[in-house]
């Protein structure tokens, strides 16, 4: 039998991992829901932002907050670039082509990062205070990431519901054709969405680099689980994706302690597959 203390620790670690996953899923889910395209290379954009923060903070010695802002700006730029250069020429092609174009981007970013920075693992070393609750060490970096992820989700929610542009984004995600009949230009909404989605990638990158080492295959490690969370939460459903992040992270953390890390992911994927069958609209969707 496994010590309940281990399980509690795993559950808390899962909760904190959930914050990270939620952050990753947030931006991707926005793009997914509005433009209806799966950016397979989304987490690879995060990887590029992580490298940016690494070089700014660890190599050139700029303060962390500056690195974070630079990362968000870079993410937004990359998001717009991906949309304008790759997505918009193929908006009307078959979905498989759209998927593969961003898949090509995945290969491109992964190998370009290998070429520029080799496969070494690099991390930013911040001196953060240690925190212990009931003899259980809690990672402060993860706690900060968790808090900022919650704040970012709140911010995104307010942006989507309280601003004019946000309303336009929601309108396009509901009915693309009707929006263009109303005289609105979906293209502009797409660019804004890509920029916001990219900025989320930048924020995720800045928060991830303080707890994980970055390497060119970082995207491959976190990519699949991020897509699963988006689908599990329901496409474009922000709250659903948030809940799904924690469901998945708890599954990974707890089965990781009981069996092994790989088995943790295996079980998470199996949970995803089963959930798709029983609740295709996402965990929070009402059955019609």
């Amino acid at each position: 039998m496994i010590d309940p203390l281990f399980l509690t620790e795993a559950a808390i670690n899962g909760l904190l991992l959930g914050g990270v996953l939620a952050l990753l899923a947030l931006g991707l889910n926005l793009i997914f829901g509005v433009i209806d395209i799966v950016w397979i290379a989304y987490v690879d954009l995060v990887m590029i932002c992580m490298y940016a923060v690494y070089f700014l903070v660890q190599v050139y010695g700029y303060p962390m907050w500056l690195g974070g802002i630079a990362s968000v700006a870079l993410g937004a730029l990359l998001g717009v670039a991906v949309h304008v250069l790759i997505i918009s020429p193929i908006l009307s092609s078959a979905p498989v082509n759209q998927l593969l174009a961003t898949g090509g981007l995945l290969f491109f970013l992964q190998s370009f990062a290998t070429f520029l920075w080799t496969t070494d693992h690099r991390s930013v070393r911040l001196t953060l205070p240690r925190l212990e609750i009931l003899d259980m060490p809690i990672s402060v970096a993860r706690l900060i990431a968790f808090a900022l992820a919650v704040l970012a989700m709140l911010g995104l929610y307010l942006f989507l519901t309280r601003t004019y542009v946000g309303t336009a984004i929601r309108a396009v995600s509901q009915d693309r054709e009707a929006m263009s009949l109303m005289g609105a230009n979906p293209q502009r909404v797409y660019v804004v969405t890509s920029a916001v989605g990219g900025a989320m990638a930048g924020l995720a990158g800045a928060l991830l680099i303080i707890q994980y080492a970055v390497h060119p295959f970082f995207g491959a490690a976190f990519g699949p689980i991020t897509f699963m969370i988006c689908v599990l939460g329901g496409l474009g459903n922000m709250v659903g994706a948030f809940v799904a992040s924690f469901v998945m992270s708890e599954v990974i953390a707890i089965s990781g302690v009981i069996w092994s890390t790989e088995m943790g992911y295996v079980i998470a994927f199996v949970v995803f597959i089963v959930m798709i069958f029983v609740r295709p609209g996402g965990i929070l969707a009402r059955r019609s």
Partner: protein
Amino acid sequence: MTPARIVAGAVLTLMVAAPFLPLGVSREYTIHVLVQIFIWSFIGGAWSLMGRFGLTSLGHGAFLGIGAYTTTLLWNFFGLTPWLGAVVAMLVTAVFAVVVAYPCSRFQVVGHYFGLVTLAVGEVIRLLIVAERDWTGGSLGVTVRPAGHDSVLAMQFADKRVFYYAAFVLWLAGLLIWWRLDRSMARSAMEAIGEDETAAASVGIRVSRFKIGITVLSAVLTAVGGIAYAQYISYVNPDTLAGIGVSLRIVFAVVLGGMYSLLGPTVGTALTIALAEYLRILFGLKFIGMAETIYGFVLIVFIIFLPAGIYGSIRDLLRRRPAALAAPAGTTA
């Protein structure tokens, strides 16, 4: 004899004679590249059996992995000949494909969702292979136990030409299956299902039966390709034979070539392998990652500018030309 047939005959003759052409030192290497092209074209063809009907699988690595690992492990641990091992592997793959395809069909998982479910399936198999490292060698992979001499029973030969002809026959068989399916009623049924499932069901097409059938066929053929590749390379690794990377590579090659035509997957696979090999030789050990970077870039450019695939686009162009020339001739007559 039409010109097209003469060209096809000449190309086939060249393919049969290729291993005996005096290519000097590069012969071994040329044969190696050609064997890979044949095997991966076969796998690409197997994928396109599903892909062309809108069942975009992003997890064919799962079937490759099951095929390759089942045969290899049975041979390594129990000394079971790969010929029987392949039969077992095909059965296992078929059962697994039904397990995946039945709920997908039952709950109408299509489009993006189908892609993501299969992607998850591919990752599950890759992670299971990594997790069961006592048997499978984990992410380090496992070598097919050498028989020590040329052996038909072990499917091991020192001479690459044997593999060349085996892969060539496999490739032809793949084309034949594709062609037979293309001419069958199943194709019309699958196209109807791809367009609109409800409408297809309303005219009496058994949607689930066709979808599961095509998935099983595609999966089993993919497993055969995986077995062939494992026997040829005599080494299996979860990253080259399962998971998202290899699954995407298969789809790339097919979409690049064009998935709605008989030779599309072959053209796409030949081009991607040739490109990858050329870049690998060009850069060698310098600039690690540069070859793959260019590969990724070329893929994006091709998908943006040639959405119907290379072979498909060229064929459309050739078809349009004679039609455009014939039209004015018809009006004057």
